[in-house]
């Protein structure tokens, strides 16, 4: 068990060149991540929240190696993994797994459940005998509440909630230490969401897992998270523990997000709200990315981009005026 952070990113930047006409002079680039520094401690549930275009999914994918960063570093247990060649990375893949958002697309429709679960073991743990492989698959099916009779069946025979259980089982089959969960419950019905969240909590307790939990649903974060990073337009705006961020949000964007959550007591939507639009990720404004929408914005904000700094109560906020 390592004592340092299990996952760290330093100055992580991801840029996507956009397709252009080959004769045009401009080469627009989409800035998906603009210098992200996070450190995830073992055993915690690190939540990343934000709205569309904030870069949270890109962050998860970069950490898992699905895309190459344009700049910066990604470290797993102190070892640099970005740009690593496949042979060196292979043993590390056992320890890092991912659960995806869409249970209807994350399982190969032509493979039965057994094959889907056996594949990671066959590829990443080739030393296992067929009998050990079978046992490992059955054990992980039981742990996720799947029936052993499911092994020979195909994904289309299952509901969304059941498929997501199978997807979680697939992520667990190589006994990882770290799991990235990218909006794992957003596509599920409301009454199933609670079941899957409880499953994830139980598994974390049993196996000492660390989660990077990506979501747009703040009420889930409040319930489930240890620490929370709020992202906007490719950068972290606020980083704090789950309790603090809900009781005492420091960044104006966090306050806007919390204010927008519909409350069961009602009354939040009675005041009309002016439309605020996400600025263009291809041409991000200089200075603070949130300045165009911020009620507190001043010239300093539009000129100088604030960096994450620590506030007296332990929260980190990227704002010139947060205290």
């Amino acid at each position, binding site marked *: 068990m390592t004592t340092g952070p299990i996952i760290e990113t330093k100055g992580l930047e991801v840029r996507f060149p956009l397709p252009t006409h080959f004769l045009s002079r401009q080469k627009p680039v989409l800035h998906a991540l603009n210098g992200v520094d996070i450190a995830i401690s073992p055993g915690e549930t690190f939540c990343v929240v934000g709205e569309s275009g904030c870069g949270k999914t890109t962050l998860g*994918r970069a950490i*898992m*190696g*699905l895309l190459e960063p344009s700049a910066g570093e990604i470290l797993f247990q102190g070892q640099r993994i970005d740009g690593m060649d*496949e042979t060196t*990375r*292979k043993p590390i*893949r056992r320890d*890092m*797994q*991912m659960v*995806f*958002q*869409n249970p209807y*697309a*994350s*399982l*190969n*429709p*032509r493979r039965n459940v057994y094959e889907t679960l056996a*594949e*990671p073991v066959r*590829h*990443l743990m080739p030393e296992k005998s067929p009998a050990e492989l079978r046992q490992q698959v059955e054990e992980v099916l039981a742990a996720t509440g799947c029936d052993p009779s499911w092994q020979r069946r*195909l994904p*289309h025979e299952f509901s969304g909630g059941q498929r997501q259980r199978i*997807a979680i089982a*697939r992520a667990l089959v190589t006994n990882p230490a770290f799991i990235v969960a990218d909006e794992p419950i957003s596509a599920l019905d409301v009454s199933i969401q609670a079941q899957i969240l409880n499953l994830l909590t139980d598994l974390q307790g049993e196996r000492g897992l660390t989660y990077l939990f990506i979501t747009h649903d703040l009420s889930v974060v409040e319930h489930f998270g240890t620490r929370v990073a709020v992202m906007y337009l490719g950068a972290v705006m606020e980083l704090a523990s789950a309790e603090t961020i809900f009781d005492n949000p420091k960044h104006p964007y966090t306050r806007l997000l919390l204010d927008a959550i519909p409350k069961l007591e009602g009354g939040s939507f009675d005041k009309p709200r002016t439309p605020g639009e996400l600025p263009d990720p291809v041409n991000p404004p200089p200075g603070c990315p949130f300045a165009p929408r911020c009620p507190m914005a001043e010239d300093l904000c539009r000129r100088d981009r604030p960096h994450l700094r620590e506030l007296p109560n332990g929260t980190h906020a990227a704002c010139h005026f947060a205290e």
Partner: protein
Amino acid sequence: MISLKGFLRRFFSDPVAIGAGLVLLVLVLMAVLAPFLAPQNPYDLMQLDIMDSEMPPSWKPGGDPRFWLGTDAQGRGVFSTIMYGTGISLLIGIGAVIVQAVLGVTLGLIAGYKGGWIDSFLMRLADIQLSLSTLMMAIIALALFQAAFDANIYADYAIIMLIMVIGIAEWPKFARTVRSSVLGERKKEYVDAARVIGLPPRKIMWGHILPNTLTPVLVISTIQVAEAIMIEASLSFLGLGMPVDRPSLGSLIRSGFEFIFSGSWWITLYPAIVLVALILALNLLGDWLRDVLNPKLRRGED
């Protein structure tokens, strides 16, 4: 994904499908069992008698009960030549489609998965080839081949040549179909899941993506067989296809064509009817298959 049971149920509830299926079944059986069922072997010169030539069908005056549909200019029974000829047409049709499919699926898979300049290059190649008519390319290729080689050599290799020429000419259709499926599948998260495990691109392309692109391939295969048979028939009719002594349906139509105006219409007519029936059955089945396998048209109980 449709179950086998659902598929069979849809088949047996659709009269068009049953009709086309039956016709196809009869023709295929006829072709396969030709050596056993045909009244005579029209290619065995020992069995032919020039005195039997140009006899009308058996129910017409002058007809002979031995030759149900009459005889052609060499004394071969039309019915027997049709049985053997159907076999050759089918062989060329299916063979050509296998070549098209193997070539097209491979190239489409690579183009779709790799993207970038490989994709652009292959698709431009496909575009160029699609803009040239298959028939024209086949005519050029076969004419050159016939001119370059002796007639006897040509006769021996005709089948292979036809299969290869039609096969290579039509790969773009399969490639494009597979490529567009691959582009759709590539975005799906099960491909990401495979990459997260660290599977090499090769394994992901062939093991994960390919099986999910095969449904459209199956659909166009039936129609492509019909098209290949048509192209071969056209080529044979033009004299560039199968030689006279091993005729396909197309060559039979050709060889009988000269005799239409001299009164021996049966030599051309019956092979033509069989050819039309074969192609119609294949097309109808292909259309039906496309509707059945289209997930958006599913009625929900399959």
